[in-house]
C-alpha cells in the first residue's frame, strides 16, 4: 500500500482509469444478465446465468479480480482526492465559475455513494447467497439451483427500494459519463479525429447502461 | 580621466572577431570554478550569458526583479529576430545585414561591433533551434522568414507574434538547466541598487530583496549588467512596468560612461493613448507593416469628421486616402525604418490629417491584404495581434482599419562599452539593450533580439574570459569589507531619505509629470528651446520630488511604492542627461530629430563632420554637469551617405 501512495500522480491516474474501464466492462456483463429478467419472465435464463456466474471456477477466480478492481479503484480514488484537498488548504471565497465538465467535480461524491450502494447491493444478494438463504428454483431439465431471480423481483416490488435503486443508478450514470472519456484522457488515448467520437460514445454508454439498469425495476414494479 | 579606448581589434573587418578569439586569454577549465560572476538581468542578454557562462564552468549568480527569470521584458518582443542566413535565397549576406544595420542606425554605430553582430547572427538561429524554439516553418519543414523595416531582403525568423517569448524561454530553459546543475544560482525578486567597486574594479553589487526588504551584498570577480533599456523615463512606453534604467544609472554614478542617452526609438505602430489613467502603451508588431497599408484621409474635412465620429474610415473612398509612406518613399513604402515612419505619422497628424478622437492616430489597413490573401492567411500571420488589439480597443481590425500612433519603444543609448562590451569600470560588462553598442541612432526591427542573444551567447562568454584570465588568483570575495559596508550604507541612506520626505504626492504622479516633459520636448521632434526648457523643468521637478513625494508603508517587507520611488528618482536624473545630450547633438540622426536640422523634404539632416561620434557622458557629481567624451566613429567598410529610402 505504501507503494500506492508513492506512485506518481500519473501512474495512479493510469491505474485508476484501467480499473475503471475494467469495471465498465463488468457493468455491461451484469446488465446483460439483468436484462434476462425482462426477456424471460419465468426467470429461468436469469437463474441459469446467475448459477453459472456463481459456480464456474473461472468466474469465481475472476470475481476476486473484480473485487480487487473495485478495491483499488476506490482506494486510489480516495488517495487522489485527499491529495487534491491538501493541494489547496485555503479555498476561495467565490466558488469557481469557469466552464468545465460538471460531473467531474463530484466524482468522489458519486463514487462514495456508489460504494455505499455496492455494499447494500452485495448485502442484498451476494451475502444472502453465501449464507444459503436463497429459495430454490426448480425447473424441469434445468437441475437444482437458487432462485436469484425471485430475490430480485421481490426487491423490485418494494416501492422504497425501487426509488432508492433508480436514484443510485442515476448517480452512477453521472459517474460513468465523466469516467468514460476521462479514462481515455488519462491513458493518453486522444486524437483530433477520434476523441469527439470517444466522447460521444461515453455519453452513449452511460445513458444506455443507466437506462438499461433503471428500466428493469420499473418494468418489474409496474408489471 | 580614462580616454575612451574602444579596443577594436586590428585587421580587416571580416576577420576581427576571428582574430580576437584566436588570440584572447582563456581560463582553464579547472580554474573556472574559482571565479565568480554576477549577472544582473535574465532577459535575452543576461539570461543567455548566465547560462553560457555557467556551462563553461564559472560560478554564476543571476538576479532579476520579476518572480521568475522567464518574465524579463524580452518576453514581450513580438515580431522576430534577424539573421543573415539567406535561406530565402534573396541575396542576403553577413555584409548586407551589417550594412543595413549601420545604415539603419544612421551611421552612428561602431562598425566592428555591428559586423560581429551580423557574423554571429546565424549561430543564434542554430542555437535556438537546437534548444527547441518552435520557429515558424514552411510545409517543407524548413524555417520561414518574413521581412521587416529597413531591409530589402526577408531575413526575419519568427515564432508567430511571440518571438521574444520563445527566444527568452529558450534562454530560460538553458538557464534552468544550469541552475539544476548547480553552476548558476538564481535570485529572483531582487533589485540591484548599486555597484561595489574595490580598487577601481567592479567586485559586487548591493541588491534589495523585494520580498523581505533587506539589503543584500553579493561579491564576484566580474559583474555583468543585462538590465534592459530606460524607455520608461517617458512614463508611457511599450516597456514593461518594471523596466528601468536604474542599474545602468547606478553604474554611471560609479564611473561608467553613459553613451548617446538621447537616442531613443519611437515605434510607429502602437495603439494610441486613450486616457490619462493609462499605464502603458501596447505595441502592434512591425511585422504588420508587411501586409498593412498606412494611410490618413487626404482631405482635412474628412479627418475632422472622423475625429468627431461622424464618419467611419471604411466610408472614405480609395482616391481620398493618402498612403503617405508609399507616396513619400516609393522604394521601401510601408517598410521604411521606424524613425522615418514615426515622424511621417507625426507630420500628418500635426498637419491635421490624424484620426481617432484625439486626432493623434493613423490607419493601418488590412483590407487589400485580406482581399489578396484571404482572411485566414492574415489570421494565421497576425491572429494574436489582432485579438490583442480587439481586446484593448473593442474594434475588429479585420473589418475596420487599426488605429496606430508612435510610442516610445527602445533606447539605443546606454552604458558605453568597448568592443569587449566592457564599460569604463574594469570588470563591469554590459550587454543587450542596456549598452549602447550596435544600433547607432536608430535600431532596425528584429535586431534587438539578435543583439541580446549575440551578446549573451556568443560575445560575453569570450570577452569576459579575456578579462577574467588574470583574476584566477584573486580569492572569492568576502562581502564584509569596507567597500561593501560603505556602499550598502549609501543605499540605505537613499531609502531612508525617500521615507523621510513623507510628502503628499504619489510616485506615479511625479513619473507622469516627468513623462509629459520628456514626450513634449525630448520625444519625436526636438529643438533647442524645448530641450533647454526640459532641462530646467526636470531639475525643478526633481527638487519637488525630494520635497513632496509620498512613500507609504515600511522599509521592511514588500513595498512596491518604495521600489517605484527608487526608480523614478533615477529617471528624474536620467531624463536630464537625455535632454542635455539631445541639446548638445546639433544634428538630426535616426531617432534623434532636431527640427532645426532637416532637409527641405523634412528628412533628418546629419552633420557628419561634427557629429560622427559616440557621445559618452561622465558623471562628475550631483551638483556638477556631466562631462562629454567623444569616441570618433570611423567608417572604413561602408560609404557614409544620406539615408535614402525613396529609391533602392
Amino acid at each position, binding site marked *: 500500500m505504501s507503494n500506492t501512495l508513492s506512485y506518481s*500522480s*500519473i*501512474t495512479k491516474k*493510469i491505474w485508476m482509469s484501467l480499473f475503471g474501464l475494467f469495471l465498465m466492462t463488468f457493468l455491461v456483463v451484469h446488465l446483460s444478465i439483468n436484462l434476462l429478467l425482462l426477456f424471460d419472465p419465468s426467470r429461468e435464463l436469469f437463474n441459469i446465468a446467475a448459477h453459472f456466474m456463481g459456480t464456474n471456477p473461472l468466474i469465481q477466480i475472476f470475481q476476486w479480480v473484480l473485487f480487487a478492481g473495485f478495491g483499488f479503484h476506490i482506494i486510489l480514488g480516495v488517495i*487522489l482526492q485527499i*491529495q*487534491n484537498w491538501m*493541494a489547496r488548504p*485555503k479555498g*476561495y471565497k467565490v466558488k*469557481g465559475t*469557469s*466552464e468545465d*465538465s460538471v460531473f*467531474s*467535480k463530484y466524482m468522489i461524491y458519486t463514487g462514495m455513494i456508489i460504494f455505499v450502494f455496492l455494499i447494500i447491493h452485495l448485502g442484498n444478494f451476494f451475502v444472502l447467497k453465501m449464507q444459503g438463504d436463497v429459495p430454490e428454483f426448480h425447473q424441469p431439465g434445468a437441475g437444482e439451483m437458487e432462485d436469484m431471480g425471485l430475490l430480485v423481483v421481490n426487491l423490485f416490488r418494494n416501492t422504497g427500494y425501487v426509488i432508492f435503486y433508480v436514484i443510485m443508478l442515476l448517480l452512477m450514470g453521472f459517474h460513468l459519463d465523466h469516467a468514460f472519456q476521462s479514462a481515455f*484522457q*488519462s*491513458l*493518453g488515448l486522444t486524437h483530433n479525429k477520434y476523441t469527439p467520437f470517444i466522447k460521444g460514445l461515453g455519453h452513449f454508454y452511460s445513458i444506455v447502461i443507466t437506462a438499461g439498469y433503471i428500466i428493469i425495476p420499473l418494468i418489474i414494479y409496474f408489471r | 580621466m580614462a580616454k575612451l579606448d574602444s579596443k577594436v581589434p586590428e585587421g580587416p573587418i571580416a576577420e576581427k572577431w576571428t582574430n580576437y578569439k584566436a588570440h584572447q586569454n582563456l581560463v582553464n577549465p579547472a580554474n573556472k570554478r574559482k571565479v565568480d560572476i554576477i549577472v544582473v538581468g535574465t532577459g535575452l542578454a543576461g539570461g543567455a550569458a548566465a547560462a553560457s557562462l555557467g556551462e563553461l564552468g564559472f560560478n554564476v549568480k543571476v538576479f532579476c526583479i520579476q*518572480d*521568475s527569470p522567464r*518574465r524579463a*521584458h524580452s*518576453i*514581450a518582443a513580438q515580431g522576430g529576430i534577424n539573421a543573415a542566413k539567406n*535561406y530565402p535565397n534573396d541575396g542576403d549576406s553577413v555584409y548586407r545585414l551589417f550594412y543595413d544595420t549601420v545604415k539603419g542606425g544612421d551611421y552612428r554605430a561602431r562598425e566592428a561591433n555591428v559586423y560581429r553582430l551580423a557574423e554571429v547572427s546565424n549561430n543564434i*538561429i*542554430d*542555437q535556438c*533551434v*537546437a*534548444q*527547441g*524554439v*518552435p520557429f515558424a*516553418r514552411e510545409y517543407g519543414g524548413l524555417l520561414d522568414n518574413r521581412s521587416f523595416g529597413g531591409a530589402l531582403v526577408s531575413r526575419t525568423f519568427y*515564432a*508567430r507574434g*511571440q518571438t521574444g*517569448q520563445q527566444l527568452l524561454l529558450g534562454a530560460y*530553459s*538553458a538557464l*534552468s*538547466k544550469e541552475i*539544476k546543475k548547480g553552476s548558476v544560482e538564481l535570485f529572483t525578486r531582487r533589485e540591484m541598487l548599486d555597484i561595489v567597486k574595490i580598487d577601481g574594479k567592479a567586485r559586487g553589487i548591493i541588491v534589495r530583496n523585494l520580498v523581505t526588504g533587506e539589503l543584500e551584498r553579493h561579491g564576484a570577480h566580474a559583474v555583468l549588467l543585462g538590465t534592459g533599456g530606460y524607455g520608461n523615463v517617458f512614463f508611457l512606453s511599450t516597456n*514593461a*512596468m518594471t523596466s528601468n534604467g536604474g542599474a545602468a544609472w547606478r553604474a554611471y554614478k560609479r564611473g561608467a560612461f553613459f553613451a548617446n542617452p538621447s537616442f531613443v526609438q519611437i515605434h510607429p505602430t502602437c495603439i494610441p493613448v*486613450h*486616457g490619462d*489613467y*493609462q*499605464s502603458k502603451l*501596447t505595441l502592434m508588431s512591425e511585422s504588420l507593416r508587411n501586409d498593412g497599408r498606412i494611410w490618413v484621409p487626404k482631405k482635412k474635412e474628412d479627418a475632422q469628421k472622423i475625429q468627431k465620429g461622424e464618419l467611419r474610415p471604411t466610408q472614405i473612398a480609395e482616391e481620398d486616402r493618402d498612403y503617405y509612406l508609399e507616396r513619400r518613399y516609393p522604394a521601401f513604402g510601408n517598410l521604411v525604418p521606424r524613425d522615418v515612419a514615426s515622424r511621417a505619422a507625426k507630420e500628418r497628424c500635426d498637419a491635421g490629417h490624424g484620426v481617432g478622437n484625439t486626432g493623434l492616430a493613423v490607419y493601418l489597413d488590412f483590407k487589400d491584404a485580406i482581399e489578396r490573401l484571404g482572411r485566414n492567411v492574415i489570421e494565421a500571420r497576425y491572429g494574436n495581434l489582432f485579438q490583442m488589439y480587439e481586446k*484593448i480597443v473593442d474594434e475588429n481590425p479585420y473589418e475596420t482599419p487599426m488605429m496606430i500612433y508612435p510610442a516610445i519603444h527602445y533606447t539605443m543609448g546606454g552604458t558605453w562599452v568597448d568592443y569587449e562590451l566592457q564599460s569604463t569600470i574594469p570588470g563591469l560588462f554590459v550587454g543587450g539593450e542596456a549598452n549602447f553598442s550596435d544600433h547607432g541612432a536608430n535600431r532596425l526591427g528584429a535586431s534587438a533580439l539578435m543583439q541580446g542573444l549575440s551578446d549573451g551567447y556568443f560575445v560575453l562568454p569570450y570577452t569576459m574570459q579575456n578579462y577574467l584570465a588574470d583574476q584566477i588568483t584573486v580569492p572569492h570575495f568576502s562581502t564584509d569589507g569596507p567597500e561593501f559596508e560603505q556602499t550598502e550604507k549609501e543605499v540605505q541612506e537613499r531609502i531612508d531619505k525617500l521615507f523621510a520626505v513623507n510628502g503628499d504626492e504619489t*510616485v506615479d504622479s511625479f513619473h507622469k509629470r516627468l513623462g509629459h516633459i520628456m514626450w513634449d520636448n525630448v520625444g519625436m521632434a526636438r529643438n533647442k528651446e524645448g530641450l533647454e526648457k526640459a532641462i530646467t523643468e526636470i531639475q525643478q521637478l526633481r527638487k519637488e520630488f525630494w520635497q513632496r513625494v*509620498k512613500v*507609504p508603508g515600511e522599509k521592511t517587507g*514588500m513595498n*512596491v511604492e518604495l521600489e517605484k520611488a527608487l526608480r523614478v528618482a533615477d529617471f528624474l536624473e536620467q531624463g536630464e542627461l537625455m535632454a542635455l545630450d539631445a541639446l548638445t547633438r546639433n544634428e538630426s540622426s535616426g531617432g534623434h530629430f532636431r527640427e532645426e536640422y532637416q532637409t527641405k523634404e523634412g528628412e533628418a539632416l546629419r552633420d557628419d563632420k561634427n557629429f560622427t561620434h559616440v557621445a559618452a557622458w561622465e558623471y562628475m557629481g550631483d551638483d556638477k554637469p556631466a562631462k562629454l567624451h567623444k569616441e570618433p566613429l570611423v567608417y572604413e567598410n561602408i560609404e557614409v551617405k544620406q539615408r535614402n529610402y525613396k529609391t533602392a
Partner: protein
Amino acid sequence: MDLKLKIWRQQGPDAQGKFVEYLVQNISSDASFLEMMDILNEELVAKGEEPVAFDHDCREGICGMCSLYINGRPHGPDTAITTCQLHMRKFKDGETVVIEPWRAKPFPVIKDLMVDRSAFDEIIQAGGYVSVNTGGVPDANAIPIKKENADLAMDAAACIGCGACVAACKNASAMLFVSAKVSQFALLPQGRVEANNRVENMVAKMDVLGFGNCTNTYACEAVCPKEISITNIARMNREFFVAKIS
C-alpha cells in the same frame, strides 16, 4: 462606472489575511482592470494607506506575471486573456468585484494578491529544457520538421506560466503547465532525445511540490489565457506511460 471591490489583504506570508472593501468611482470602461487597480492604489497612497500589492509587469498578456482570481475566475470574466488585458467594459456599473490571490499550497501568498510561483521554475529546472550547450549545434535547417508538429509545439510553447490553470483547477493541479512544456519538446526532434527522462523528472517534481492530481475537469483549459489545449495533458500521460514501461 462605480464599483465595490472586496480585496484580499494580507500583510505577509505568515500573517492572517482578510477581505477589505473599497469603493472606486468614475472608472472609464476603456480602462484595463489593472489600471482600475492603479487608480485605487493612487487613492490609497494619497490617503497614506498602503496600496494593494499585486503582480504585473508587461501589461500586454505575455509575461505571465499578473494573476488575480476575479469573481471566481482566474484572470476574470473574459476568455483567452490575462488580467492585464481585461477591460472594465466587462463589468457593470455598481457591480461587486471580489479579488482573491491564486490559492494553492505550492503558491503561498507573499502579500495581498501576490503569490510565490517559484514552484513552476523548479518544475522547469527538473527537466524542461534540451540539454545542449552554447555552440557546436547543427545548422538550423539541418533537420526538417513537419509544419504540423512545429505548429503544435508552438501552441504548447505559448504557455506564459501564469498559473491560472492551477488557480482554476479544483485540485490545484499543474498538469496543464507541465504538459505544455513536455509536449513542446516531445513534438520536436531536438526534444525527443531526452523525452523519457524529461517527463519522468518533471512529473516527479510536480508531485513533490504538492500540486494536486488531474481529474480531467478541464477548468484549466477554459481559463488558460493562451488557450493551451488539454490534449497536451493526454500527450504527457502517454509520454509518461511509454517512459515508464520502456
